[in-house]
């Protein structure tokens, strides 16, 4: 350390180094050095060594970790499940309008985040979710709900996941993340959900086909602890914000690029990537909305649902 030791910002995320989180982190480390002239450096913790998605969110909330890329934990507030609602966006462009910087979803969520001493510095899109069928499973469901009948689908522990995939006709099975690979390999489940395409690449050895159902858009966030953030000297905060803005300037193009890059890789690995026809997509949308809207109204209230619907242009 020099005469004036650099201030260290602890930055954590739960993904391996081939993820968009890592690319952003590396860019941020460089940008921060430039905008702050080296007075701030990053104490970087990738790969979930300080916890997974939920644990990181809680630690930002508690102020133990000042900065993290993660998604919010809906066990803290069921309204946060709103980000996993199905079919609010049709394509990357509408997703960008809805979830992106200055977009309506940001407003909706920022109010909730602030109640937990958390602030989002920006959205980090990771792509549309799809259904990955295990290798050896011949079924390729495209007409929902009927095609999915009797198929066991691995889901994460979010209440909205059960509603969504039951509506699509699957039998949702909660299995911890560390067992997903083996469960797919051995046939404990027939398929897994909540998987944007980079995760399909990570599990390519056990996946036979990937159906681009796009039943939700995975928007995650660049979170900071609000007290820590507001406690920074104004000049410093502006410099850090500048580094963040530079890092996020082309995040959407980066995300789209990664999506295309990994789709090509996945196809090359011999996995059948299946797109739904417009009719099949409409059918899936209707099935999901018929179950998810009433659930959402009950779970996070008619007001919030109305705001979301308005934002998504779905009156």
């Amino acid at each position: 350390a020099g005469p004036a030791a650099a201030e260290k910002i602890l930055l954590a995320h739960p993904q391996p180094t081939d993820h968009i989180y890592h690319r952003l982190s590396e860019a941020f480390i460089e940008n921060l050095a430039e905008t702050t002239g080296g007075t701030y450096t990053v104490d970087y913790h990738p790969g979930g060594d300080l916890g997974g998605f939920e644990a990181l969110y809680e630690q930002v909330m508690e102020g133990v970790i000042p900065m993290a890329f993660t998604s919010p934990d809906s066990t803290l507030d069921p309204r946060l499940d709103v980000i996993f609602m199905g079919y609010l966006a049709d394509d990357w462009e509408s997703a960008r309008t809805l979830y992106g910087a200055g977009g309506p979803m940001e407003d909706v969520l920022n109010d909730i985040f602030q109640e937990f001493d958390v602030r989002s510095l920006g959205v980090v899109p990771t792509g549309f979710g799809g259904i990955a069928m295990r290798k050896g499973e011949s079924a390729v469901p495209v007409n929902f709900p009927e095609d999915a009948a009797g198929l066991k689908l691995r889901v994460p522990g979010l209440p909205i996941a059960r509603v969504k995939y039951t509506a699509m006709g699957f039998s949702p099975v909660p299995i911890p993340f560390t067992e997903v690979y083996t469960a797919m390999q051995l046939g404990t489940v027939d398929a897994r959900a909540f998987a944007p395409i980079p995760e399909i690449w990570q599990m390519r050895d056990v996946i036979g086909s990937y159906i681009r159902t796009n039943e939700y858009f995975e928007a995650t966030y660049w979170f900071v602890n609000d007290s820590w953030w507001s406690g920074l000297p104004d000049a410093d905060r502006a410099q850090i914000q500048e580094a963040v803005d530079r890092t996020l300037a082309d995040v959407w193009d980066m995300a789209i690029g990664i999506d295309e890059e990994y789709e090509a890789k996945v196809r090359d690995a011999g996995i059948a990537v299946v797109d739904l026809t417009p009719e099949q997509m409409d059918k899936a949308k209707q099935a999901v909305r018929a179950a998810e809207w009433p659930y959402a109204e009950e779970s996070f209230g008619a007001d919030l649902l109305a705001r979301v619907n308005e934002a998504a242009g779905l009156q």
Partner: protein
Amino acid sequence: MDMRDFTSLIRAGETAMRLMAVFSGIALAALMIVQTAMRYFLTSPFLGFEELAVLAGLWLYALGAAFATRLDAHVRGGFLNSLDPGDGRLRILRAGASLVCAAVCGVYAWTSVAYTLRQAQIGRVSPYLGWPRWLWTASFALAFSVMVLWFLVEALRRVQGRTADPAGAE
């Protein structure tokens, strides 16, 4: 309240904790068995099993750890047990070891009680059942608090040169 009431109150508390320990074991096993069966026989499983199982598990861990203190069943190493047990300095050393344990438990009792209260304050609930989250973390808050007491009792016993507790060693 005289001393006898106090003793019987402590006894009753301990019996209740024993029953809870056994119950958490039964509950955990039963939940997992039913969940496995339901995965095969029902198309839409009740996902609340997972959080109930973790609830039973945390209470099982916490009460098990507390009783490991009560029954002197902790994993330990060392060389003291091969030395003369009548040695006075050794007695002080062993009592000191118990006090270190009590102090560690004290710090953790404080932080886990504080954390449990914070959960209650923000009204955090479990995702499926909507039960208050403090039910989960209260397990270790209780266990650490009880362990402080039991380690202090152990320290006292060790100073007096008594090694085994007749009530604990059944």
